[in-house]
């Protein structure tokens, strides 16, 4: 067992464990914290995959923004009673079943794929990944359009969120 493999297993355990906690804790704020742990784990995974920029973006965006957002939402919608009640609804058995089914299905599908046992190829070192990525995002021939569309999407989401969450004016 190589060191990378062990590392992978530890991170996998962290991710899966905290993910499990996310979906099973009673208290919402705990769930949010466990999510942060999961996100960190995923970031570490990105780093193992030589996608350093991705790891950073994961932490900054997901943990720094989205998770914070969750915490804010949880704070604004807190209910004492809810936190002491059972976290799962009455269909959780079926849901578990479906979860297992989906995992099983995905595994079955992937297993029959011939590339399932590939090993990673070596990275070329003369290419600067980040420069490449940055150039690709702003090159019209490349991925400028999706980039701009994503921006528009974010703008729309921003406006939408502000509007939806706006308190009705009482005048």
């Amino acid at each position, binding site marked *: 067992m*190589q060191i*990378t493999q062990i590392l*992978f297993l530890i991170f*996998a355990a962290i*991710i899966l464990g905290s*993910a499990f906690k*996310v*979906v099973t804790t009673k208290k*919402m704020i705990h*769930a949010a914290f466990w*999510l942060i742990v999961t*996100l960190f784990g*995923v970031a570490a*995974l990105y780093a193992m*995959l030589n*996608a350093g*920029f991705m790891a950073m973006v*994961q932490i900054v965006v*997901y943990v720094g*923004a*989205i998770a914070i*957002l*969750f915490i804010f*939402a949880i704070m604004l*919608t807190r*209910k004492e009673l*809810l936190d002491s*009640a059972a*976290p*799962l609804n009455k*269909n*959780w058995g*079926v*849901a578990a079943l479906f*979860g297992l089914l989906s*995992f099983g299905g*995905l*595994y079955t599908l*992937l297993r029959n794929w011939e*590339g*399932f*046992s*590939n*090993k*990673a190829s070596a*990275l*070329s070192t003369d290419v600067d990944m980040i420069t490449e*990525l940055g150039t*690709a*995002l702003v090159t019209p021939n490349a*991925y400028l359009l*999706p*980039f701009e569309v*994503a921006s528009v*999407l*974010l703008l729309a*989401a*921003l406006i939408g969120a502000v509007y*939806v*969450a706006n308190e009705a004016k009482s005048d």
Partner: protein
Amino acid sequence: MIPISWYLILAAALFSIGLFGVLARKNAVAILLGVELMLNAVNINLVTFWRYNAPETVTGQVFAIIVFAVAAAEVAVGLALIISIYRNRNTIVADDLDLMKW
């Protein structure tokens, strides 16, 4: 060396857990947490395939970045909605939000 299958299985497992969370949690915010987990699983998949199949391109990473953006937008809007619902109905238990009931 780590075979691709480990990453993919991990992503599948994460996805399944997220699915479970979406389907089984009472709290609306918790549902969104489950969605986040699923999105992360997807991202892992994307990056894994980038690394193992086409590392010289940047397509995989770009895709994953766009997913980030979308996830962020979706969370923002979703939470705004939940807050609005909370203000109107004073509840965020998903089962209580059944206005579309027959």
